[in-house]
Each structure stands twice: as structure tokens, then as C-alpha cells.
């Protein structure tokens, strides 16, 4: 094998073992490649031939399985952090947009002839609170994660924690959205179609929750090492 291929082969093997957001992965691999070429250059300066210099650099960098585990932890953590930030921002925004839409196009819910039953109000309050509770949980998780990153807690563990919080948070949000839609359909399905903009906003809220569920699932996949 030509000497120029030793580093390339190592980086390719590392690449194959990693799953996660491409920009972060490409950045990590570019830095690893740079470091290996720097190390190989240092060994060449000490008199080693090109291929031997690259083999020494690769050996010093560490076994690809060991290094891949550490890098995968970083990728999982990066994805988990990004997902929690999305949860923190998107869910309250979707909730506020829906409420503004409803207030503008329909007005207050209590304009209806008959007041809704208690069970419906419970579901509605749960859905109203869930956006803020879930966003608060995401903020708390990000702050705690930042503190834990200063301890000896590994990036793999941090990534798993982020994934668990993301799954629970998105699950609660999705449950709230589905519950209020189902409850409204059961109580009076016509209310779901009172106003096209509000119906569209409801569809957007559901789509946002489903999209976040996909992201949360990926958090778990990427933090699995």
C-alpha cells in the first residue's frame, strides 16, 4: 500500500463507524486528518520514510474502535444539544402562533353555547402547559449538561442523557397535541374546521411535534455506542 493511503484508510475507517450530523462529522474528521498529517510530518522530520511516518502517526492516534467511540459520543451530544435547543424554541413558538391564530380567527373558546366538560378542560390545560413545561425541561437539561461536561461524565453518557430528555420532552408534547385534537374531535369535530388558518396551524403544530419526535429518535440512535 502506498504511504499516502495509510492516513486516508484510517480516516475512512473512522468515518464508516460514525453516525451523526454531517457538518459536525466532517469537521471532526477534517481535524483528525490534519492532526495525523501534522504527526506524520513531525516523524518525517525525524528521519522516518513517508509510509512509516504515517503508520506511526496512526498508531499514536489510537485504535480506530476506541477513537470512534469517543467521536460517536461527541456526535450524539452535538445532535442531542441541537434537538434540545429546537425543543426549547420551536414548541413555545408553535404554541404561541396557534393561540394568536385562534384568537384572531375564532376568538375566545368560551364564546361557544355550552361550556366544555371538565375532562376536556383538563386535556386543554395539559396541552397548554406542556409547551412551556417541555421547553423548561430542555433549558434545564442544557444547563445541567453544560455543568456535567465540566466533570468526568463521558460524552457518551451526556449524549444518552440528552437523548432521554429529548424523547420524554417530545413525547409529552406530542401526547398533548394528539390528546387535544382527539378530545376536540370527540367533543365537537366541527370545531377542528371552524377556520382554515386555525386548522392549518393545528396541522403545523402536529407536524412540528412529529418532526421533533424524529429528531429525538435520532438522538437515541446517535448516542448508542
Amino acid at each position, binding site marked *: 500500500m502506498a504511504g499516502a493511503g495509510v492516513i486516508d484508510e484510517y480516516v475512512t475507517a473512522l468515518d464508516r463507524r460514525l453516525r451523526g450530523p454531517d457538518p459536525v462529522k466532517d*469537521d*471532526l474528521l*477534517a*481535524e*483528525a486528518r*490534519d*492532526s495525523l498529517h*501534522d*504527526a506524520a510530518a*513531525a516523524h518525517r522530520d525525524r528521519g522516518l520514510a513517508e509510509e512509516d511516518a504515517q503508520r506511526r502517526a496512526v498508531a*499514536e*492516534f*489510537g*485504535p480506530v474502535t*476506541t*477513537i470512534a467511540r*469517543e*467521536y460517536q*459520543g*461527541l456526535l450524539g*451530544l452535538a445532535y442531542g*444539544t441541537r434537538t434540545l435547543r429546537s425543543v426549547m424554541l420551536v414548541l413555545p413558538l408553535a404554541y404561541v402562533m396557534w393561540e394568536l391564530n385562534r384568537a384572531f380567527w375564532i376568538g375566545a373558546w368560551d364564546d361557544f353555547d355550552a361550556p366544555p366538560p371538565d375532562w376536556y378542560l383538563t386535556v386543554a390545560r395539559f396541552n397548554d402547559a406542556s409547551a412551556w413545561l417541555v421547553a423548561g425541561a430542555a433549558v434545564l437539561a442544557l444547563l445541567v*449538561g*453544560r*455543568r456535567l*461536561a*465540566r466533570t*468526568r461524565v463521558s*460524552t457518551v453518557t*451526556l449524549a444518552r442523557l440528552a437523548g432521554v430528555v429529548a424523547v420524554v420532552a417530545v413525547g409529552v408534547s406530542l401526547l398533548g397535541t394528539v390528546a387535544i385534537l382527539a378530545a376536540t374531535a370527540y367533543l365537537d369535530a366541527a370545531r377542528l374546521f371552524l377556520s382554515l388558518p386555525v386548522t392549518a396551524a393545528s396541522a403545523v403544530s402536529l407536524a412540528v411535534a412529529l418532526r421533533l419526535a424524529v429528531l429525538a429518535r435520532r438522538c437515541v440512535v446517535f448516542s448508542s455506542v
Partner: protein
Amino acid sequence: MKSDALRGHLDALLLATLDGGQLHGYAIIEALQRRSGGALDLPTGTVYPALRRLETAGLVASEWSTVGGRQRRTYRLTKAGQRALDAERTAWREFTAAIEGVLGGGPWPAQA
């Protein structure tokens, strides 16, 4: 030096190498090896994840910049990182002083 013993102090060692200014990854590895007299034999590939974790913790910041005509990711201490390094140094001095008092200075005099 055993990797396990080193790993427990890796964060502090990385912060210390950045105390003099920003460095790219391989320069940090060279500084670690030079300042330890070559005793630090940790796989160099583990240094980068450690640096990124310190970045997540807000103790270092990084950016791509041109060094020696090449694009490299360079790292620097943040203010929080500087405070963390100062705290690590203080804790290390207290620890080594305590251990030196017990282990240093040769055999203890026999008790009367």
C-alpha cells in the same frame, strides 16, 4: 505514565496548555508531550474529543483559522476556562503539598 492516571487530569492539562494563547490541536498535543518530558503517552486521538467536551462546557472556544498557511481549528481559553484552570492549579498545589508532607523527605523517625 499510565493512561488511567493521566485521563483523570487531562482536562486540567489541556486547559494549562492553552494558558499562553490559542493553539491548534496538534500543537496542544506537542505542548503536552514537551512539557511532560514525553511521559504522557495517551492516544492522541482522545485529545480532540476532550477539547470538544471542554468547548461544550464553555471552558474553551474554537474556530477555524489560518495557521502557517493552512486552515486549522484553533482553541483558546474562555474566561470560565481561565477560572477553572486557576481553581485546578490551586487544588493541585494543595494536593501535592499534602502528599509531599507524608511521602516526601525519606523514612519517618522512629516513635519514642
